[in-house]
Structures are given as C-alpha cells and as structure tokens.
C-alpha cells in the first residue's frame, strides 16, 4: 500500500468507527449483544482481510496498515474481534487456507496435541469465542508445525470475559476434527507474538483516547472559577500522559514496521513492555483528571481504561516480555547491548 492508500484506510476506519461505535453500542455489547451492524460494515470494507494476500482474495496490506486498524479499534473501543480476525486470517493465509464465507474467527491459544488429525487441548480465555464460528489454531503435529481451522462447538465452550467485559471463552477440545489443516513454516510462538503485537497497537489507540478525553474534560470542567485545565498541576499531569501516549504510539509502530521487515521479535517485546508502563501511568492520570465522574459507569472513560488494564495482561504482561529482553541482553553480554538496539535484534 502507498502512503495515500494508508491515509484512505485510516480515514475510512475513523469514519466507520465514529459513526457506528456509539456509547450504546459498547454498553449493549457489554450486556452480550453482538454489534451486528458495526461488524457488517467492517466486513463490507474488507478490514478483516487486510493482511491476506490478493491472490487469496485479500487486501494485500502490510502490518503498518493493520496497525492503523488496531489503533483505531483501541481509540474507539470498538467491541468487535476485528484485531483477532485480522491476525487469524493472516495465520490461515500462511498455510494457504481460505476463510469460510461469513465466518467469524477466533484464535486459539493454549497447549494442544494432535493425533490422526484430531485435535485435543484447551484454549483458555479465547477472545470473542462465544461469537465466533471458527477457530484458528497453530499446533505441533510430530515435528511439523501446522495451522488448523476448526468449527467452534458451543458445547466445548465455557463463557467468560475480561474486566472490559469482552468475551473470553474457555474452549476444551477432545479429538476434534479439522475443517482444513496444513503444514506451515513459521515461528511456533507466533500466536503469542501476534497477540502481543495487536494488543500493543490497540493499547496505543486506547491511550490516545484517554488523552483526548482528559484534555477535553479539563477544558470544560470549571472549578475555582476556571477550567481545571488552566491549573498547572493538571497541565503537568496531562503533559506526562501525552509523553506516554507518544511513546506508546511509536513503540506500536516500531513493532508493526519490524514485522513488515521480517524481524519482529525484539520490537514486539519492546512494545508490550513499554506500553504496559504507559498504561500504568496513563490510566491513573486520566482518572485523576476526570475526578469522580470518570469513576462512574455513566461516563465513558472506563471503556478505554478497563480495556487498557485487561489488554496489558493479555498475551504476556509487560514484565513477561521485559524478561525476554533482559535475559537475552544479559546472556549476550554488555558489549552486544548497544548493537542489539541499533539492529533491533536480540540474536546477534
């Protein structure tokens, strides 16, 4: 995609989400209503197929393009599994498997064993499992790494949700057959890495949202005869929040760009680690600035902050990814520390 098509993608997503992701849409979704209209629009625009090559009837975009959508999802707190469907359809495309018509995909993440092309194992906290028709799974079959597509059977599924009330189902598989499966040549830890990548980008978007909400509120809320945003204490806090928002956006972009360059391990770990810190500081400041009103369900700030608190722990916490970085840095030794940063690579 060129810069212009990226801009077009960004504008289209902004328009679509600002039209359709209303407060009521999010509230209804939290009560268990599937946002049918929103999802239909997303599918009609082919957003879910952004990473699928054109020869497999996809859009043929790159990870920087996908990052635009991930961030927009976070910015609007859109209650749909678009990020998951983008990643799931990408994983399917790696194995040359086409996505069934009108399917809604989820990504299975857990420990699996395959015997005679029958899959067993469990996938705890599977995103939007209850609304998904199919699951995509990356698993080991002997010495082969394979991608499988299965149907989601509600009998194998126990409902749950994260603290943002996004559906996270527990899937238990006992000798389930595949609709299709195929060998794939990729990183065996790909699901977790791509999960961390998409959540990092979504968090970067949600952090932008809490910054814009907080600045708007600070300019509107009058105390002591003037908008609270005129007080230096508030200004300094919001400046700090904005520096973390900026850092998160850069870290998320860096991960996408490294993915496009085919060397993402370092950058994904950096993003999930850095943005986790941004969430801890940033969500705190946003709530502090909003005062009591931001603590109510009525006010919408929590749609973003609860997602941030949930997402920072999904697909590995910041600490877990920090550990990945730190262990490598220490075993590589001090002399390789700087070169590994300039090359964006821990295996040097």
């Amino acid at each position, binding site marked *: 995609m060129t810069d212009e098509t990226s801009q077009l993608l960004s504008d289209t997503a902004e328009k679509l989400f600002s039209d359709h992701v209303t407060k009521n849409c999010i509230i209804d979704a939290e009560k268990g209503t599937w946002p049918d209209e929103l999802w239909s629009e997303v599918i009609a625009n082919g957003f879910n197929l952004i990473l699928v090559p054109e020869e497999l009837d996809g859009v043929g975009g790159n990870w920087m393009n996908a990052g635009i959508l991930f961030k927009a999802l976070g910015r609007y707190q859109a209650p749909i599994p678009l990020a998951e469907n983008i990643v799931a359809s990408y994983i399917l495309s790696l194995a040359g498997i086409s996505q069934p018509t009108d399917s809604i995909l989820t990504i299975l993440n857990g420990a699996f064993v395959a015997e005679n092309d029958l899959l067993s194992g469990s996938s705890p906290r599977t995103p939007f499992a209850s609304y998904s028709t199919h699951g995509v799974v990356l698993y080991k079959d002997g010495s082969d790494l394979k991608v499988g597509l299965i149907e989601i059977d509600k009998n194998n599924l126990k409902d749950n949700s994260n603290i943002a009330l996004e559906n996270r189902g527990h899937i238990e598989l006992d000798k389930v057959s595949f609709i299709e499966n195929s060998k794939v040549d990729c990183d065996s830890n790909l699901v977790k890495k791509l999960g961390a990548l998409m959540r990092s980008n979504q968090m970067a978007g949600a952090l932008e949202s809490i910054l814009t909400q907080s600045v708007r509120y600070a300019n509107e809320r009058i105390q002591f005869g003037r908008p609270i945003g005129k007080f230096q204490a508030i200004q300094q806090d919001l400046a700090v929040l904005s520096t973390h928002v900026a850092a998160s956006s850069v870290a998320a972009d860096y991960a996408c760009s490294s993915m496009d360059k085919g060397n993402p391990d370092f950058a994904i770990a950096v993003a999930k680690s850095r943005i986790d810190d941004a969430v801890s500081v940033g969500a705190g400041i946003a709530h502090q600035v909003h005062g009591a009103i931001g603590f109510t369900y009525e006010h919408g700030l929590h749609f973003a902050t609860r997602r941030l608190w949930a997402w920072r722990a999904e697909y590995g916490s910041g600490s877990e990814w920090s550990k990945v970085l730190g262990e490598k*840095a220490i075993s590589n030794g001090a002399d390789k520390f700087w070169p590994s940063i300039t090359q964006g690579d821990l295996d040097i």
Partner: protein
Amino acid sequence: MNIPFNFRLTDFPVEAETLRLEVREFLSSALVDVPKETRAETWYGADEGFSRKVGERGWIGLSWPTEYGGSGRSAMERYVVLEEMLTAGAPVGAHWIADRQSGPLIIRYGTPEQQEKILPGILKGETYFCIGMSEPDSGSDLAALRTKAEKKGDKYIVNGTKLWTSGAQRCQYMIALFRTSKEEDRHGGFSQFIVDLSLPGVTIRPIIDLAGRHHFNEVVFEDVEVPETMLVGKEGDGWNQVTAELALERSGPERYLSSYALLQELIKEFSERNDYEGVTEIGRQMAHLTTLRQMSVSVAGMLNDGENPALEASVVKDLGAVFEQDLPNIAHRLMDLEPDNQGNDFQKYLAILTQISPSFSLRGGTREILRGIIARGLGLR
C-alpha cells in the same frame, strides 16, 4: 482534539549504517586512554585532542553544506555518529555545542565574514562554543534577562552577567543572547551575538558543582566592546532565532543517553555474576531506551526534512530525562554496591551519575517548562 504530535518512524539510510561501523572502528582505538570518570560524563566530558581527531575524520559539521566546509551528509548520518560516540563514552564535550548548534546558527543567520572566520576552526575540532542564556535573575524565565548590549558607533557595549555557562573556561566563543532595546513585547528587543571570550572586560569564574566538578561558570561582562560585525542575524530577532535552535537542542541522543554507561555496566555485572535477578528490570529499561531512540530518530528525520518538530522535541527531552534519572536509582536498587569513585567501573559510574543526574531535567529547559510547552501544544494554555 487531535493529538498534536506525530512521530512517524524513520529508517537510517544504508550509508548511515556503513558510517556506524566506521565510527565503531575508530572508537575502539581512540578511547583506550580515556578514564572512566570522563566516559561517564558523555557529552560533558571534554578532551581537546579527541575533538581534533574527530575533526580530522570530518565528523564535525558532518551535515553542514559543503560550501561551508561541511561534509554535506544527512542529519541521519550525523545522528549515527552522535549516538555511537555517546554510548561508547567518547569525550565529545569540547566540540559538542559548536557542532550541534553554534555552527548551524552561524550558517543560517551569520554573515559571510563570520562564517569564514569561525566555521573552519569548528570543523577542525579546535574552536569551541558555549551558550550564554541564563542569568542570575533569569533561569526558566529567559525573557527576564538583563544583560545589555548598547549600540555605540560600530560597537555594542555589553554589561551584565551570564550564569551556569557550561564549559566557558575552555571555549573561545559564546553565542550570547543580550537585550538590545526595551520592548513592550516580552519577547522583543533581544539579539544574538558571537562574543570572543578573550575580549577585555570578560571575566570567567568557575562554579563548582555538587560533585566537585568544574563545568559551570559565571561570565561577567564589564563594558565589553563587541564589534557590530559579531551580531548574528537581525537585531531584535534574537528570541525567534533562539527558539528555532531549541528543537536542535532538545531531541538529540544526548537527551536520553546520559546514563547509558551505567546501564551497560549493570549488564556487565549481571553477566559476570551469572545472576538473573533484576533481569525484568533490565528488559524494561531496554524497552524504554529503544522507544526513546525511535522517537528521537523520528525527530531527526523531521529536522532532516526541514520540518519544525519543536513539540516532539520537548516530548523526547522530557521522557529522556525521566529515563536517565531513573537509571541510577534502579542500579542502586538492583545491586548491593556502594557508589564509589575508587571502586570498580560500576561503582564509579554509579557514583558520578547518581550525583549529576539531577541536572538532566534542568539543562536545556527544566522539566516544568517542557511540560508547560507540551500542555500548550495540547491546547491547555
């Protein structure tokens, strides 16, 4: 509101990566005799012999246009030279200011005569500059400065005092901001000058910092006669010229690498002990450092493209200073070693950086001022 800043990622061109290897090769032999204490100070550590060697390689004024004697290379290549020097602990302090901002200022606003007289010495690593902005009653409130330059014939007569002038004792010149007229407008009536510090009436007095080092100075001007030919740019335009300099001053790799040596020593200690305690913290700092670097490189890319990323530069400097200041405390928490000037390398770095880290959020614009600038960018003031 929209987010008022935009850090788009910038890649280094291939030639910058080639240059990186040349710089690493050069530093591997050039730094052998540089003591740890000097390395720990990065761009405050000065060694004139080293600066001349850097000049010989053509790495001062690297991105200046060739008609001014520069190498005409990109800002991205210059960035690579800087970050490699800083992470290696090279004593770049003598030529740092002249290379970073005085030279570019003279190229942009200076007269051909000023350019001919001064730029060659900077390029050789022999002519050094300091910055004369702060005064006894004018710190963060720069517009309150009082040092006067009064026009008399073909000279300006300067009276007043500059304070906290880093490195003045070894510099031939100061780029000084003086008041040239009284203006209603708080930001009017200032002008920039190149002041030869050997002129009669200039007195440089050391101010010893809390670590016992001599970096700061008080520079007193008593009826100093500065030729009018040393006015930089237009009389009365000083404020705008200074503001334009700040983006150069606030976003470079020196704004987050000041404590780098300590982080590297920390990793060395862990590696040698085969001790993985604190591994998460090391990784966390690596994530912060990498992100800051991407942000700072992004600003370099914008500068290279002729944009004015003043707000982005303030964001980098604020976050960078927080990072640099956290490191000594983190190093202290992770290791049961005392800061000790006579101890091992880690202890030496810890001793120096613990003491000098408060300055990281003071120099080049205090934390409060930077956050005020950011708040203005957010539409809060």
